[in-house]
């Protein structure tokens, strides 16, 4: 029970001084304190020695390594310094969670709601991008679960915390993960966590974010009530079945326990549903088939976000189905007169639709950039005449009668099929 006291002072590995202020929270592996670190407010995670035992040394060395490598970017509450050892344990310093960010479980428990539906999609994109960057750098997260994210409900921004388990591929702390988030092959002990098993855990987190249900907890699992080690092995390891598996309904949803899923699943686009079906297919979970990689998730999620349009008839936000253009709310047919085609994306051009930076960057950078650069508007006198308004600081160009027309901030381009708009080095075509 070696907990720290208010006012207690500790030395850091880099020669700094840490003064303990208040306890922010307690988890299974440690306590988190607000501290003064060389005059700056920071967070200190202090390990419970009796919980981690032999792993403590591993954590110490791993953290040292992660500190010297530095944070992938500021979306990670990355360790910046270590403390001295006290009574057989130690801690590490990381940035404090900023104002506005909420713990992921608060969303799961419906204590916090996203301001808009699209913020939830942005949160999903930010989560996937976080893992894309980690994996690009040769790291694996290993112990991915609901405690690893702070999310801002106003804009879907995500901070990834608990980065002490993040390690280079092949390294492992001895902690293989948290039940319900671990990949089946890890649960049964056939495999150590790696990039592929991270992807399973990520798919679980995304599914829970959207559905507020667990992907493997359908009718077969609910009534098997005692969650013991063996039971856990069976339903999350040896014989996991996705609640929406189209080839096997033995673990299908029930109204009593999967109401959330039944409401939310139809709100996903077909592409997103297909990604979940692929990620939780029998073969993917047994690693006999591949599971969608981060880039695929990113692209499909951004297309999904672009398909969240406002129905011109009833004004409600809906999910536009490219194969069946009918409003899901008022059931009236949707005549989309034009689309913006850019890279992998097809944006239905209806009033309120937007073009964002990421449509152009297409996830080649290290961060998801949802900054809106253009918006679809209707002519005041003729709602069938639509245009794209430049909301960016850049000057766009398009060709009209052999001449280049420049379009500055606040100006509008009439959307006529076949027109090609040049934005920086990218082209957006009206189709």
């Amino acid at each position: 029970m070696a907990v720290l006291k208010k006012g207690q002072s500790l030395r850091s590995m880099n020669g700094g001084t840490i003064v303990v202020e208040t306890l922010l929270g307690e988890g299974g592996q440690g306590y988190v304190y607000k501290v003064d670190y060389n005059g700056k407010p920071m967070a200190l995670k202090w390990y419970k020695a009796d919980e981690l035992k032999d792993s403590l040394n591993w954590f110490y060395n791993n953290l040292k390594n992660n500190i010297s490598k530095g944070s992938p970017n500021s979306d990670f509450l990355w360790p910046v310094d270590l403390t001295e050892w006290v009574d057989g344990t130690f801690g590490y310093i990381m940035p404090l969670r900023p104002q506005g960010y909420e713990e992921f479980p608060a969303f799961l428990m419906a204590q916090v709601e996203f301001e808009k539906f699209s913020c939830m999609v942005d949160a999903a994109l930010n989560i996937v991008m976080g893992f894309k960057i980690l994996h690009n750098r040769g790291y694996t997260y290993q112990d991915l679960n609901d405690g690893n994210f702070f999310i801002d409900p106003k804009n879907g921004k995500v901070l990834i915390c608990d980065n002490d388990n993040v390690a280079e591929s092949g390294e492992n702390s001895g902690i293989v993960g948290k039940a319900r988030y671990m990949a089946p092959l890890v649960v049964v002990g056939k495999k150590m966590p790696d990039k592929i098993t991270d992807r399973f855990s990520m798919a679980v987190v995304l599914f829970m974010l959207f559905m507020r249900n667990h992907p493997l907890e359908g009718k077969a699992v609910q009534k098997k009530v005692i969650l013991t080690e063996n039971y856990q092995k069976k339903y999350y390891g040896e014989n996991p079945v996705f609640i929406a598996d189209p080839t096997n309904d033995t673990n299908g949803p029930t109204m009593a326990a999967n109401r959330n899923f039944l409401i939310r699943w139809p709100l996903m686009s077909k592409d997103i549903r297909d990604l979940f079906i692929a990620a939780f297919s029998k073969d993917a979970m047994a690693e006999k088939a591949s599971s969608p990689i981060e880039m695929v998730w990113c692209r499909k999620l951004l297309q999904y976000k672009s398909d969240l349009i406002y129905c011109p008839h009833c004004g409600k936000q809906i999910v536009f189905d490219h194969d069946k253009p009918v409003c899901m709310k008022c059931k009236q047919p949707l005549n989309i007169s034009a689309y913006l085609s850019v890279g992998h994306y097809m944006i239905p051009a209806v009033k309120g639709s937007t073009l964002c930076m990421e449509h152009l960057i297409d996830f080649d950078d290290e961060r998801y950039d949802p900054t809106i650069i253009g918006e679809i508007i209707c002519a005041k006198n003729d709602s069938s005449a639509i245009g794209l308004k430049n909301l960016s600081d850049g000057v766009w160009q398009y060709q009209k009668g052999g001449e280049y027309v420049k379009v500055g901030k606040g100006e509008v381009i009439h959307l006529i099929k076949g027109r090609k708009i040049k934005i920086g080095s990218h082209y957006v075509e009206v189709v």
Partner: protein
Amino acid sequence: MANEMMDLLDTTEDVGGIPRRTLTIFFMIDVSGSMYGSKIGAVNSAMEEVLVDLQDVEGADAEIKMAVLTFSDGCYWMTPQPVNLDANWSELKAEGLTDFYSACKELNDKLSVSHGFMDSASGCYAPVLFLITDGYPTDDTDNGDNGINLLKKNNWYKAAIRVAIAIGDDANKSLCENFTGNPETVVVAHNSVFLKKVIKKIAVTSSQVASSGRSRTDSETTDPNTVESTVGNKQVGTIIKEIPEDDDDDFEW
């Protein structure tokens, strides 16, 4: 366009929180006459604080409930149904005998889905069973054997994380060890300061272990045909072992 633009979240049926499994922590507390005074006082003040501390253990995976069974002359459910952590703690009073057998019978009854406390739409974790006693059963001839043997046939008991505190100088350690089935999950308390501290620590730790499902590579593999929570009980045991020894200078009882 006549209509206002409405967000999808506002036009779709609200979804509630994610279904959580229930973790019930059963306290089986000896309130016989010998517990009178600082022992029961320590239990009372520990329990008030336990309710608060356990709120930090709850999360999106687990909802924690508490059931309290006291025994003296017969036994009594302070909680006719398991209660949430925002419940008020009503002070226990100590008087009477040590009817441990009748308490085991009652506990056995409630460790059931159909007629007991283990019914929950989204399932339950294996419970935590926490025995706190300072005495010797007055309604059982073999130091509690009959009652415990009854429990040993119950699958919920088998699956449970089982912990116990034996109180006092002549603490009945063997009863407690028989109850938990594992000497490592029994602690002896000799004074009220330690008793209070250790109740809190054990309640929080065992709930964390019971609900976390955190796995390690060195967890031993269990017999696939058993419902025993071997790894969980072992984990709790190792943490309990680390609790600093009761300080005999403070000897009270």
